[in-house]
């Protein structure tokens, strides 16, 4: 869950239509129309990245009149499906996938079971990536991949399909880096040996 207090705004007159704000938006809140950005307030998770990116310095954040609360509770969806998705991806339900919003693995999985089909929709539904925008991406992509979603990267380097996990490493890699504590870490993070490499089988 994230409580979003800010929303992006901008001055259309000096906008050059460069599209950079759209490209960095994590939640798909910006759409270009007639070479000007249109910001969907319902999708804006208040990360401020567009403001920082705009080369013309014509964007800013304003307070929302009411905070936007983004959340998908696991109860809203089939709990067994959430558990199965987490197990297939090898992501712990309680793991804070997004450490800025403390969005747990279970909530990301629930958003996908509820219908999110890509990273942008997961971000808009849960508020993940409204902080640093960096560290939560791989676990979320892995859950999307495990659910059989299309992993073709969208254009303009919005994201690339990185989903590697500790459980995927081959014997060859383990042998090449014998001092990397791979087996030891697998035992710590997966004491019940539930997880393995991500299978291609779609849930």
């Amino acid at each position, binding site marked *: 869950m994230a409580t979003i207090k800010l929303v992006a705004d901008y001055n259309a007159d000096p906008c050059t239509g460069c599209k950079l704000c759209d490209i960095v938006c994590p939640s798909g809140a910006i759409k270009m129309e007639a070479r000007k950005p249109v910001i969907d307030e319902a999708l804006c998770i208040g990360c401020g990245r567009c403001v920082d990116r705009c080369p013309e310095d014509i964007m800013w954040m304003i307070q929302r009149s009411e905070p936007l609360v983004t959340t998908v509770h696991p109860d809203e969806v089939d709990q067994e499906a959430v558990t199965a998705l987490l197990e297939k991806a090898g992501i712990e339900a309680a793991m804070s996938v997004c450490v800025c919003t403390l969005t747990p693995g279970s909530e990301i999985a629930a958003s996908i079971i509820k219908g999110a089909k890509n990273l942008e929709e997961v971000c808009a539904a849960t508020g993940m990536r409204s*902080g*640093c925008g960096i560290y939560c991406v791989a676990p979320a992509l892995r859950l999307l991949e495990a659910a059989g979603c299309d992993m073709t990267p969208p254009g303009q380097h919005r994201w690339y399909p990185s989903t590697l996990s500790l459980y995927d490493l081959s014997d060859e890699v383990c042998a090449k880096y014998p001092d990397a504590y791979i087996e030891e870490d697998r035992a710590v*993070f997966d004491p019940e040996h539930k997880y393995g490499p991500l299978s291609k089988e779609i849930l």
Partner: protein
Amino acid sequence: MNAHTAIKPPAFMHSDYGPALQPHVSETIESMVSVPLTEFFPNFAPAITSGYPETLEADLERVRAETRKSLALVDMSSIAATDSVNILASEHGFGLMGGWPYAEMIKTIREVVIERTGCTKIHLRLAIYRGFKEAEEVAEHFGFNEAFEGRVKGLGPFDQGVEVETVVGPMYLIKRAFDATKFIHAYYDDPREMYFNRLLYKSFKSFCMSYARYETRSVYHSMFGNRSGSVIPRALFDSDFIQQRYTFSSVLCTTPMGVIGVDATTDLYAIDRRITKSHLETYGRMQRLFAEIKDCVAIWDGGRWGYYLHGGGLIFGTLLTNHSDAFDLDQPVVAGFMQSPTAPVNFSRNKNLRGVVVNQAWVGAGIPYVTMPFTTPMYIVGEEQAQMWREDPTNPLLMDRATVVDSLHQGVAMACEKGQTDKLIVFDGSYGHLTCNQALADLLKARAPAVDKMVGEELLPKWLAQRGLS
């Protein structure tokens, strides 16, 4: 114990990401002292830099000389006069002692490469953390535009990527970092997030962080433990893509005392072994000394994100995450996004840290972690700074909990009273000494001999053996 006048910290770069420069703690609170680290650990060797404006020219002269001395031994035959070369620099180097020593090493690398190879197409690529304007600020402040004749560009985790095939599968680096035929890894060895990198192949970390897209950074931080994560930067460094372009590394070497020299060679694995040993001996002692602090209030007072501000050569994050011995590789998790389901660690909370007073620090990095203001009382000095934090999208809940105070004195008094502590520690960018109050200075000085003995006799031999460095 002798009284020491508090020392004003190194001057830092003003940034759009931080507040207007405020008077420092050392200037505002008369009772503060700056204790030379040699009073804790007499065997710490002196640094070649002081980091202070009065001696800046002499400091930089020594950095230049050390860089030239080290580079003189480097095989540069992989650089042809017709090549183009990117010098890759990373942003946290500009947080070390005001950033000038690192900047000087970078400028000297360029000069020497031109002299030695005849190659003149040398570009600087400045890797920054998150803010798109940071690189321009750095280039301007340190005079890189002039030094590199305009061949300077920033790069960050959201910039266009390039897919790189590695032994662990495809990873994504930032295209602009590698848009020349060759590159030089111009690094600094500040251990910074020692609880994450565990000093396990730390010198390689830029390959999965500074030079990498956010997806690769996420894999390193979130999909591996903090020991097994060491596979990712090594797999990238060892990849054909990197090896075809890599020429040599030049690393600004530090201890908690400051800059001690420059280590340059083509063999990054050899540099890493030397740095790791030095760090375990020096930063290891300071880290264990910080673990002796059982109650204190910390003051953020510098020109970086609060989490990464140095005091006594260690960042605030080290104090926050001092739950256990970060260098003991038998400990599976010290901090990390991937947590043991049976024994999770709250690495944004140190119960001994009773409060944080923010005199000045940058916003915008998701730092402190969202839970910190909920578990550790925070006091923001001044309404103007408070407004900056309110508008920080990366910390939306901080100002719900933090208290705005009129003055540093008021914040310190409130924090100490609420936290039931009389000890203050300052993170203001200092190396070579720790700025704190007398109560903490007395405690640390009393504890240091036992820490020195414990590290020297018990911990250091174990740490070294775990890394094959005995």
